[in-house]
């Protein structure tokens, strides 16, 4: 592993104005979790609620700015033929225009506090972070790249679930990524997930719940079935924090909850524990 060969001037990705940057500083916002009102600029660089610690939803590129020293994007130009579903092509194009992303996940090789990792970040602003076949393809390739280059994988999940317009292809991504996770696992490499708001549906039922170590951001919504579906099934209202990461921690499905400003340090510490010694 050579940390010094990383040419930072070329590895830094081009920045495009994100969804959040378009919000004026003086705008009054309410925390989606606790409801506290605050000025946009009060959220600070990490966009965290001063009252409850909830991390406002970030775009993938904003996350990279906050988290990494360098980032070399992988598979930026990968394309796949999409199923011909009514209205889908338009929807996809709109998502691309709005987010400056090609798909709902951004992948690459990054350094986080000097640790080299294969990094994937899902973007909930891109069609709710839904799992399309290209999303699955990019994550699969990230794992494959990590396995052949003996890198840990750090994956930030954010997803509304399956991409309905892609039907069975979307479902098959859960299996496809899982196969790549299995291979990475067998190579003895670390897979670390950070659950961010919201992580639901097919992503929860596959690679979000297959990591060696699972972290979560405060108050992130994490679940399999939608709250409304559960409530209409059991005919009762769910408690307030039922699908929040604090409840998952209590129930044993998360290793730790880490405030956003501390994530880089925590990830680097965990990656160092699993450093692969070269023979």
């Amino acid at each position, binding site marked *: 592993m050579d940390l010094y060969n990383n040419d930072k001037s070329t590895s830094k990705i081009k920045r495009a104005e994100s969804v959040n940057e378009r919000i004026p500083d003086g705008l009054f916002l309410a925390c989606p979790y606790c409801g506290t009102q605050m000025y946009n600029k009060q959220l600070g660089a990490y966009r965290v609620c001063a009252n409850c610690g909830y991390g406002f939803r970030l775009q993938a590129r904003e996350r990279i700015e906050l988290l990494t020293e360098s980032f070399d994007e992988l598979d930026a130009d990968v394309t796949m033929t999409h199923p011909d579903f009514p209205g889908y092509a338009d929807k996809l194009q709109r998502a691309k225009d709005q987010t400056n992303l090609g798909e709902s996940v951004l992948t690459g090789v990054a350094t986080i506090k000097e640790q080299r990792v294969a990094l994937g970040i899902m973007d909930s602003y891109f069609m709710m972070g839904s799992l399309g076949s290209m999303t699955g393809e990019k994550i699969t390739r990230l794992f494959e790249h990590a396995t052949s280059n003996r890198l840990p994988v750090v994956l930030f999940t954010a997803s509304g679930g399956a991409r309905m317009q892609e039907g069975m292809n979307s479902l098959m991504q859960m299996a496809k990524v899982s*196969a790549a996770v299995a291979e990475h696992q067998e190579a003895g490499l670390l897979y670390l997930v950070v659950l961010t708001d919201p992580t639901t549906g097919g992503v929860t039922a596959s690679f979000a*719940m297959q990591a060696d170590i699972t972290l979560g951001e405060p108050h992130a919504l994490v679940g399999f079935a939608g709250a409304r579906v559960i409530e209409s099934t059991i005919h009762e209202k769910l408690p307030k924090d039922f699908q929040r990461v604090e409840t998952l921690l209590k129930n044993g499905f998360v290793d730790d909850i880490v405030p956003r400003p501390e994530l880089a340090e925590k990830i680097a510490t965990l990656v160092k524990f699993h450093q692969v010694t070269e023979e």
Partner: protein
Amino acid sequence: MAVNIGLKLFKRELTPKDIVKKSREDRFLAREIINGIFTDFVELHGDRLSGDDTSVIGGIARLNDQPVTVIAIDKGVDIHDKLSKRNGSPEPWGYRKAQRLMQQANKFHRPIVTFINTPGAFPGKTAEAQGQGEAIAQSILLSMKLTVPMIAIIYGEAGSGGALALATSDQVWMFQNSTYSILSPEGFASILWKDSKRSDEAAALMGLTPKDLLEKQVIDYIIPESRNHPRVFSLIRKRLDNEFKQLNSLTPEELMKQRRARFRAF
């Protein structure tokens, strides 16, 4: 072959909407299938962690002479049974029972046959608290690592991750009048158009019939149905026997590689 072509001339082909309806009619029952195909079925209960989900029947049986592990989602027989099995919607401990039996099969080099008929994993409060997502995720991951042959057979409806959890296998077969989809047509219509009543339209669009899925290579074989159930079972028995012989001729590494490649193609 010739018979099939001949039949098509006289029989109107069912529309996706018709197949959705038929797939929910319980024409075949889990225990009937198990006892019809295999002999000496011994049922094994529990996940060793939190309970026994009766909507997932599991155990060991003989396929002709060969011991196999059988895992079947059961919708239940009468209304009482159906209620207690949530119409075939497994709880997390159902999937964990399946995982336990899959691991056991792997240890004793037994092929695995799964039978799937579920609207989806149960969206309940306890299910969620006990990690429904994690249970499905681990079932899929485990399936990717097993070195014994696995064949999944969909015999009714197969909805979403709750079906996929038992269908990440070397081959997936479907009964002629069954469906496999990302979500029920009702759920699909209500998410996409905010109108669950447009489910027939959704069914037509979703590509959930065996024919559609065979074309897309999501499945490998369509099991022709007949009112004569023993005939259907005998056909499945023969085919399973054949396919397992073929799959058993591969090394464990080849088998695993081939299974992973099957899903890598999507």
